[in-house]
């Protein structure tokens, strides 16, 4: 301690200089607006750049939150859209609206044959090509998606139901914008359940979350499919999601065949994609 005082005393010029110069700078920064703003700005520059670097890392942790927020926003916006008229219409029905072109209409039909316990399940309905049904149309019920039209006769139609290993239905989650396909068969034999594949691992899936159609293919968007009951990581980069189907296939009585007025147009346009390749 004594040595320190001797040292300071020996070089008192320098230490006094530090003291007085520091005091002067303190006055400068404290009393002059220009220097003050600059001092705090450069301080902020350092702090700000540190924060920016930290944020580079932390923003990945918040990606889920950000996605959820965006997805919620999208959902809210989607609710404001006039959706493609899903209603309990009893026969083919159109709304004449000059603002909105009708895209989807529905043909109501009665189930006359059904199976749920086979390896591949089919449904037969009492409407056919005379009523405008064509091969490949989507079929829904009041509760949710039923299947895809397989074969058409003048008076009858067979439907490859969701409970068929070859049926793939483009499906998405209600709040997340990831889409995958709904499949059944293989390990899943329970007629009330199906699996949702191809949803990437990073998507956070809550139990009880709604699974709905995407609107990419045969069905209008946001037709209910089911609810998530289990979501596991699978070995690859996709989630293994188990879905409880909304449609009760064993008690199915009436279905609606979806007529997409614009499907031809859409298919022709999309055909150009492959032709150009």
């Amino acid at each position: 301690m004594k040595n320190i005082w001797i040292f300071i005393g020996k070089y008192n010029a320098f230490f006094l200089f530090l003291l007085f110069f520091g005091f002067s700078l303190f006055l400068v920064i404290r009393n002059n607006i220009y220097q003050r703003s600059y001092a705090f700005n450069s301080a902020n520059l350092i702090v700000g750049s540190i924060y920016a670097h930290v944020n580079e890392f932390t923003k990945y942790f918040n990606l889920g939150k950000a996605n959820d927020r965006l997805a919620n926003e999208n959902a809210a916006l989607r609710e404001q859209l006039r959706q493609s008229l899903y209603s309990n219409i009893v026969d083919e029905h159109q709304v004449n609206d000059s603002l909105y072109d009708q895209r989807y209409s529905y043909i109501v039909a009665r189930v006359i044959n059904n199976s749920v316990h086979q390896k591949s399940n089919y449904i037969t309905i009492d409407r056919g090509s005379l009523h405008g049904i064509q091969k490949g149309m989507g079929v829904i019920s009041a509760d949710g998606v039923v299947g895809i039209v397989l074969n058409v006769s003048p008076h009858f139609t067979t439907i490859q139901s969701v409970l068929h290993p070859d049926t793939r239905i483009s499906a998405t989650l209600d709040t997340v914008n990831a889409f995958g396909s709904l499949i059944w068969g293989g390990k899943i034999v329970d007629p009330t359940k199906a699996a949702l594949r191809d949803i990437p691992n990073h998507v956070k899936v809550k139990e009880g979350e709604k699974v709905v159609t995407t609107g990419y293919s045969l069905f209008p968007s946001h037709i209910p499919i089911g609810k998530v009951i289990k979501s596991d990581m699978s070995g690859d980069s996709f989630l293994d999601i188990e879905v409880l189907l909304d449609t009760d296939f064993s008690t199915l009585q009436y279905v609606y065949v979806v007529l997409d007025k614009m499907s031809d147009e859409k298919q022709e346009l999309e055909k150009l994609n492959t032709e150009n390749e």
Partner: protein
Amino acid sequence: MSSIFILNIIRFFLLLAVQVFLFKNVGYYNVATAFPYILFLLLLPLNIPNWLLYTISLATGIVVDMFYDTFGVHAAACCTLAFVRIIVMKLTVDYEAHETLATPGIGEMNFRWFFFYSSVLVLTHHLTLFMVEAFTFSNLHYTLISAFLSSIFTEVVILLFSLIFYRKTKR
């Protein structure tokens, strides 16, 4: 003793008056400005204690700052000047050859020494002054040019003052 004290007080007020009333309005397009008030700090007695030198420097700087509305800038420059003055004195002055309270002017020393002494001190003072005033390293060349040209200006004025009052400072 008391005469030196009074002489310095008079010098302080005279130089300060000249600085804030005359040289504040004299300048070369904001590039070169003279600050001859530091002559007062240059001419403080040889053996002045360090703490007193610093205190006087700080006070002088603050008074000038008050007139220039740049609180602390001149104070910082004057503190640096005091530090450099102590170093230069220690390196170049043979204290035993002079009176304890001798004024380090042209009369007591010689012209060559005073020219060197004042040049170094003026240059450090001005560099500090302009750097603290700019408070940034951007436009550094402009700041340095200003400091350098102002140093020349101030040095000329200081030498003129010293030569004009040559006989008086010699007593």
